[in-house]
């Protein structure tokens, strides 16, 4: 298919996207790296015009030794991991349920997709107030109805609450991808397995789950990309308190709230490194799975 002519045309047509993304990646990255080695507190009079003091790795050391660093990494991983586990497991089950014939498939599918359309700020606000509010939230009503003491979700079970909210947002996505994958499973394979004496559990384990592995990979990859940078959900609900300060949020606070650009930038570099570690793992898996 390829001739010299089409190859050079291809390079030309690929160029704008590559150049734009390269610029989008490199320019701010370089600046962040630069600031991370500087003392830069605009509130205390530091400014670019007057030049910034070189502080070497001080910002890195301070960010790392700050008492909030490791908790924030932990919070990030717990939230991302929790959401991934919940959405994948529930997604598989829900997809298998929706794959069965039942009345009103179209409508139920609409209901299930709906959370995906809701913007993060709205879903955070709705969950925080309408559902999780310890006095007037619907969950509080429910708890009282059963004679239990309403829970202050966002302070007493804050991380779990965040995981719940984010899982609600991403479950539709996981379900839909997995449903599409299940529907593409050749039913003759399942019938062959049945003829070979496999019970439903064995059929799930040996046929359905391996068939879904590619789809699960895609779900994990895409969700991780988005989950690593969840912001609005935390911004709106807890504002980073009660152990829900993720790395993203911690850096945000350093840069915006305390206006310590140098420190925040060093944090940014850590976040980038963390993201890259995750990315390398994911890309390995995805690269392998995409070849099939």
């Amino acid at each position, binding site marked *: *298919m*390829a001739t010299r002519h*089409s*190859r050079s*045309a291809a*390079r030309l*047509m*690929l160029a704008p*996207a590559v150049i*734009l*993304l390269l610029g*989008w*990646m490199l*320019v*701010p*990255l370089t*600046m*962040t790296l630069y600031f991370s080695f500087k003392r830069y507190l605009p509130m205390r009079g530091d400014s670019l015009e007057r030049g910034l003091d070189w502080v070497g790795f001080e910002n890195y050391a301070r960010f790392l030794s700050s008492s909030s660093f490791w908790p924030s990494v932990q919070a990030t991983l717990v939230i991302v991991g929790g959401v991934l586990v919940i959405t994948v497991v529930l997604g598989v089950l*829900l997809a298998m*349920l929706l794959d*069965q*014939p039942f009345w009103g498939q179209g409508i139920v599918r*609409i*209901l299930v*997709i*709906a*959370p995906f*359309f*809701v*913007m*993060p*700020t*709205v879903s955070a*606000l*709705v*969950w925080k107030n309408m559902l999780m509010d310890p006095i*007037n939230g*619907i969950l509080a009503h429910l708890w009282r109805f059963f004679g239990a003491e309403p829970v202050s979700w966002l302070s007493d079970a804050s991380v779990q609450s965040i995981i719940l909210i984010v899982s609600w947002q991403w479950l*539709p996505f996981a379900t839909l*991808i997995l449903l*599409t994958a299940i529907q593409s499973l050749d039913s003759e394979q399942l019938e062959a397995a049945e003829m070979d004496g496999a019970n439903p559990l064995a059929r799930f384990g040996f046929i359905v789950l391996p068939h879904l592995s*590619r*789809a699960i990979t*895609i779900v994990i990859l895409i969700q*991780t*990309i988005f989950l*690593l*940078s969840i*912001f*609005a959900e935390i911004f*709106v609900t807890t504002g980073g308190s009660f152990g829900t300060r993720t790395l*993203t949020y911690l850096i*945000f606070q350093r840069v915006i709230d305390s206006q310590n650009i140098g420190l*925040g*930038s060093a944090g*940014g570099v850590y976040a980038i490194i*963390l993201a890259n570690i995750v990315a390398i793992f994911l*890309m390995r898996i995805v*690269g392998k799975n*995409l070849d099939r």
Partner: protein
Amino acid sequence: MARAVTTRRKVITTAAAWAIGLLIFFPIYWTILTSFKTEAQAINDPPLFFFFDWTLENYAVVQERSDYMRFLWNSVIIAGGSTVLGILIAIPAAWSMAFVPSRRTKDILLWMLSTKMLPAVGVLYPISLIFVEFNLLDTRGGLIAVLMLINLPIIVWMLYTYFKEIPVDILEAARMDGAGLREEILYVLTPMAIPGIASTILLNFILAWNEAFWTLNLTAAQAAPLTAFIASYSSPEGLFFAKLSAASTMAIAPILILGWFSQKQLVRGLTFGAVK
């Protein structure tokens, strides 16, 4: 061949699927419902599920307090602009990766996707500086550019997977038939990929519409879209459930309606073309 299913089993499945579907949908249903209540009814104990005095008052108050139409218009322009721009840049790129693959094609694709993993906060300050420098702060143009860039990898990726499904033969036939590169893409590839392109547009419109980091951090009054509109209700003064609900409903309604009308393309789009 699917086998016949007993009615009993179908009834059980139906009940389970509907129960779960309604449970998942409940927060949205509850929000929309509450938006038609008075503030007192909104926090009534026990909760009122249907029988109350329906009112549109909250919508009027919200509209009065903040200029909904301006936020809505900003959202449309920003989400639409970034998507269209992204598509225009991504189609040629996806064409070349799908039909003239080289040894580096897969690496480039994965690299593009990996740029999405760069944590936005890590570059928030530099981007703000650049925005200040070029007078882009609180402009729709600036946001269009940023949202286009953050969604570009996804657009390229999706189009790539859709284009891959198109037989190379057909493009070669067009070439034999005398079509140049422009005609090949314009008259043959694009029309054949319309369903895929539509799904891509839809999904990215939604992603851009719902994007809530850059839209919150790079806008103030002028260019603020609906994400910012609703964020202003997170402060304590917004803690009036009915008004909050009305504002929420107004923020999500356009995309909810769009999404439901184009459900089929969207389901295709949601799978990012990666799962068949």
